[in-house]
């Protein structure tokens, strides 16, 4: 009962084999190889047997012209004499002539009677004639002379046929060897392809099974398969990084939101369990609502970062004046800085048009200013400026007088929920610079962080946000 199923599997295997890229490449190689051999064989045939055939025809044609001239000069007698002369010096004994009269009687030539294949006047034919009782191939041309006389001019084609036979045999054997080589070469090619792809297939299979640590082993050949392997490994590294990033973000969300949620829960529980007056309850609830708003803001920031990174907001790109956006941001954060005894200095050209997402750019500037205000001590100065660093570019620079960022922290500053040690005591979610980086990437730009006063005790932080002014 198992036989039909096995047969079915067998046919499926054959089908898969025939559809495989290795087989198709190998078949293509075999076909091209055989086509090249066939082309070579045709050229060889044309250059040898073909040439000999053409030479025979040319000789017959030349003979015919000579004999026709003799006919015009002296009629049958002259042709008879010309044939006799030609045959007398035919050392190779290849020439064939026959001149007959109206009754079909032989007047001259070395053929005993007219061959059946050459009946049609003017015809060229391949026939056989008997020489010493053996049939030999001959090329014959029927030349009508007048109503009664007709002439047959021909050549013994034994040499040509012998060459053809020799060539045919040689080419047949060559073709058989070529087929064997093509099949062997195709099999070797298919095997080589399968061998080179095996490592990549095994790696892909292991990764599909969940082992993300596997990488495609590379050879020292540095060929296309190694390039494919390198690309696959780079892709896997990137996926690995993203997975680590996602895991980190998930961990951070769980860690950073656990505290405010637990605090809110505790407040609500206390309010539930203890007798309090209405005012006290209201105050507790307001604090709890503020905590929950904070959680909501974190999620909102995460969503905006995700939107910016996905490029989903690119459809909302429109021309706007960056100078106006800077003015709006400076107005809000200037007031905030003033409250904290700080100064906000601004400078930018009167007009800075660009194409982009106005709200996202405003949010990015606000985040940079928010950090600057947060980290600059009372009495400090914050500088907000903008310029055109190059054609098609807009640059926004925010400098503060805060503690700055260590070099290793700058590298991580765009990671979600990352907060450098000095800032842990200050309010914030660690998502501000992540959003700025995402907005920069959305606008084809970048965020660079540096010291305002390198080497100083409080070097300050200089954030340069460069954006492309074109969509």
């Amino acid at each position, binding site marked *: 009962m198992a036989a039909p199923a096995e047969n079915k599997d067998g046919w499926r295997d054959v089908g898969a084999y025939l559809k495989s890229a290795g087989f198709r490449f190998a078949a293509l190689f075999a076909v091209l190889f055989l086509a090249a051999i066939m082309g070579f064989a045709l050229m060889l045939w044309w250059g040898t047997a073909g040439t000999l055939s053409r030479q025979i025809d040319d000789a017959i044609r030349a003979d015919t012209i000579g004999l026709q001239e003799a006919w015009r000069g002296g009629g049958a007698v002259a042709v008879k004499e010309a044939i*006799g002369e030609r045959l*007398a*010096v035919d050392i190779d*004994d290849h020439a064939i002539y026959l001149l007959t009269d109206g009754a079909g009687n032989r007047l001259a030539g070395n053929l*005993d*009677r007219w061959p059946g294949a050459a009946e049609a006047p003017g015809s060229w034919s391949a026939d056989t004639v008997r*020489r*010493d009782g053996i049939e030999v191939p001959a090329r014959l041309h029927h030349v009508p002379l007048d109503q009664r006389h007709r002439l047959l001019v021909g050549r013994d084609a034994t040499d040509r046929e012998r060459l053809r036979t020799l060539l045919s045999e040689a080419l047949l054997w060559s073709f058989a060897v070529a087929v064997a080589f093509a099949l062997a070469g195709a099999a070797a090619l298919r095997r080589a392809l399968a061998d080179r792809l095996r490592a990549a297939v095994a790696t892909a299979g292991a990764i599909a099974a969940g082992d993300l640590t596997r990488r495609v082993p590379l050879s020292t050949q540095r060929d296309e398969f190694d390039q494919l392997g390198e690309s696959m490994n780079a892709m896997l590294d990137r996926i690995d990084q993203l997975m680590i990033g996602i895991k980190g973000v998930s961990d951070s969300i769980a860690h950073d939101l656990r505290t405010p949620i637990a605090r809110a829960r505790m407040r609500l529980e206390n309010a539930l369990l203890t007798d309090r007056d209405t005012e006290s309850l209201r105050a507790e609830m307001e604090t709890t609502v503020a905590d929950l708003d904070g959680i909501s803001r974190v999620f909102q920031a995460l969503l905006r970062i995700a939107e910016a990174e996905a490029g989903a907001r690119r459809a909302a790109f429109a021309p706007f004046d960056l100078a106006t956006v800077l003015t709006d941001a400076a107005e809000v954060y200037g007031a905030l800085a003033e409250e904290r005894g700080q100064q906000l200095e601004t400078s930018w050209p009167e007009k800075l048009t660009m194409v982009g997402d106005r709200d996202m750019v405003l949010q990015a500037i606000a985040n940079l200013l928010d950090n600057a205000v947060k980290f600059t001590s009372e009495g400090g100065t914050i500088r907000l400026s903008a310029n055109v660093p190059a054609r098609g570019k807009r640059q926004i620079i925010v400098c503060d007088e805060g503690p700055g960022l260590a070099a290793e922290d700058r590298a991580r500053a765009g990671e979600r929920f990352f907060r450098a040690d000095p800032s842990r005591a200050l309010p914030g979610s660690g998502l501000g610079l992540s959003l700025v980086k995402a907005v920069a990437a959305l606008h084809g730009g970048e965020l660079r962080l540096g010291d305002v006063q390198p080497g100083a005790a409080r070097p300050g932080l200089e954030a340069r946000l460069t954006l492309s002014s074109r969509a």
Partner: protein
Amino acid sequence: MAWALALLVFLPAAAFAQQAAPRLISGSPEYCAELSGRFSAMEIDAPAHLRALAREGRQLCAEGQTRSGIAKLRRALKEAQRAE
């Protein structure tokens, strides 16, 4: 029955005669004689080695080796024509 037997015997022979290829007749003793006569016409002016060649040809023809004899006579004739 007799005529049927005759048909069986003669029909294939007749068919063979009809299908048989034409025969080259330049290997006959008569042709040897024809070539010999042609050479005789130019023998006086021919060089000695060609006369010797023709003599060999005639000798071979006389011995019944007509093909070889004809070949030698043809070579002698061709050389003699060239010499003229």
